[in-house]
């Protein structure tokens, strides 16, 4: 049986940031229910992690960046300001692999084909008709790219293991030309081996030029993939740690707001 320890840093330690010049997403003074005055710049090829404890506003920020809840302040996608709901965000190439896969990610009664094609159907598809051969082609493309292991793609998606369900949801967006990918707690309830596969996928997607945001509370995960990490505390950005500075102690220090509390008591 393989454990996480064996993977630790072997493939990930040596990696260098793939960030390019072009800015994919930029937030300036972004506020909303549960978060306040958030600013960051996300470039193509960059992987930016955002962490924080329960109640730090992390979940709400993730939702706002995909148009699930409204925001105030400036949010630029590809240099243009964006407002409105999920449909607008999808149209501009922002996609999300949501947290709580079982409730918010998979469409449990639908087949693997339909789950994978749902992104395309809702964005690029012209006209009303869904053609099964096209669904099949999309599936086999992503099956190969993401190494989805499924017995029969006509089965409900809930027949797959957690990791493969997550790959189906990722594949859903890779079929839409999305270039800003938001992963909200992507490895929740996924076995160790598949977690490793997902990290490798994240790095590959960044290399291919996708701009990637990873919302996560797991240090080993952040350590493996992130170019830098925003630590949130009480709805605000408490600290931005670069890859070199990243350590579990510092992450805990800033996410519990110890620096703020110390100042208060000094």
């Amino acid at each position: 049986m393989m454990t996480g320890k064996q993977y630790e840093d072997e493939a990930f330690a040596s990696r260098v940031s793939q960030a390019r010049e072009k800015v994919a997403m930029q937030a300036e003074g972004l506020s909303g229910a549960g978060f306040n005055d958030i600013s960051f710049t996300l470039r193509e090829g960059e992987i930016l992690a955002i962490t924080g404890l329960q109640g730090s506003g992390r979940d709400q920020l993730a939702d706002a960046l995909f148009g699930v809840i409204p925001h105030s302040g400036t949010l630029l996608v590809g240099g243009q300001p964006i407002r409105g709901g999920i449909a607008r965000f999808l149209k501009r190439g922002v996609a999300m692999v949501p947290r709580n896969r079982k409730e918010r990610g998979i469409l449990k009664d639908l087949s693997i084909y339909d789950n994978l094609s749902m992104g395309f159907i809702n964005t690029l598809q012209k006209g009303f008709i869904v053609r099964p051969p096209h669904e099949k082609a999309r599936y086999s493309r992503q099956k190969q790219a993401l190494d989805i292991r499924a017995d029969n793609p006509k089965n409900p998606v809930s027949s797959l293991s957690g990791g493969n369900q997550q790959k189906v949801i990722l594949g859903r967006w890779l079929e839409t030309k999305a270039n800003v990918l938001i992963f909200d707690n992507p490895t929740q309830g996924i076995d160790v081996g598949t977690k490793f596969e997902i990290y490798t996928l994240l790095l590959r997607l960044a290399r291919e030029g996708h701009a990637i945001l990873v919302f996560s509370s797991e240090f080993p995960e952040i350590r493996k993939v992130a170019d830098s990490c925003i630590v949130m505390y009480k709805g605000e950005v408490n600290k931005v740690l670069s890859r070199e500075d990243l350590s579990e102690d510092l992450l805990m220090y800033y996410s519990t707001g110890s620096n703020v509390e110390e100042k208060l008591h000094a």
Partner: protein
Amino acid sequence: MPDKTLRSPRELNAKTILKRLFGEYSYVVSFILIITIAVIVNPNFFRWRNFSNMFTQSASTTGFIALGMTMVICAGQIDISVGAQVAIISGFGIEVLNTTQNIWIMLAFCLALGFVIGSFNGVLVAKGRMPAMIATLAVQTSCRAIINHFGQGGPFSVASGISTQPHYETFRRVANGSVRIFGYNLPYPMIMFIAAALLFGLIMQRTRLGKHIYAVGSSEIAAKMAGVNVDRTKIAVFAITGLLCGFTSWVYSSKLMAVAAANAGSGFEMDAIAAVAIGGTAMSGGRGKIIGTFLGVLMFKMISNTLVAAQVPTFLTGAISGAIIIIAVLLQSMRGRTK
């Protein structure tokens, strides 16, 4: 690395076949069962006339509505206003026919009114965030009250004074006419019902709307996160059901040529839901097929015809549809528990 995701290739043993037969394809099993009983009770069952009558009766009552109800239930909703919709649309529709003497204007009117009432249901549920049961109950009561008021207790009849005019006979033929193909009489309602079932089957399986309906019924939040416009999908299913109520009203009025405001279309909602339930559609949404409902409608008709042949009092048929819903849904929930 051990791979838990790959099961042994397609276990096709007797157990899995049985499981699928009683799970996914339960409507086939019930269909065969009910045909067997029907044939025993009524030896003339397979006579073409009996067979085509079954279609005509279904299509001029709850057949089309059950197709829309399948969409509504697959989207995780319910519509109990359909019977009252048929009453109000038929009543006013007949008035329109009497005034304009044109069956096509009447059809257009029926479809338009059905679309308006259905969309209203949809907007209450989607934008007003009302539970579908409450919203459609309120619409049901209102529709029935309005048509009772205009009917003043009496029926709406296609004016008999004009029975000498050509459109009277034309309209009567909508539900009672037939075409003769290869020596068989195919009643118009039978043709219309089969065509509608095919069309709706295609919509559910092969279009964006169909995929959205299953997605919304499966999980609203997951559908939303996948980019589905949940509100629009909900409004669409109710509006389509309204359209089908309008179409049904046209056929229904033609079948009866006079409808009584107080009891026209009464019980249609229960019959339609029962047909959907025995057709194997999950009452919780997300799963179900038009072919199941198609067979469900026929099964329902067979059951009531069989009961008539077995001389069960007609007033008890309501109890039968109640029992059918209870049995079908109980079976579904038992299946869900063993999973």
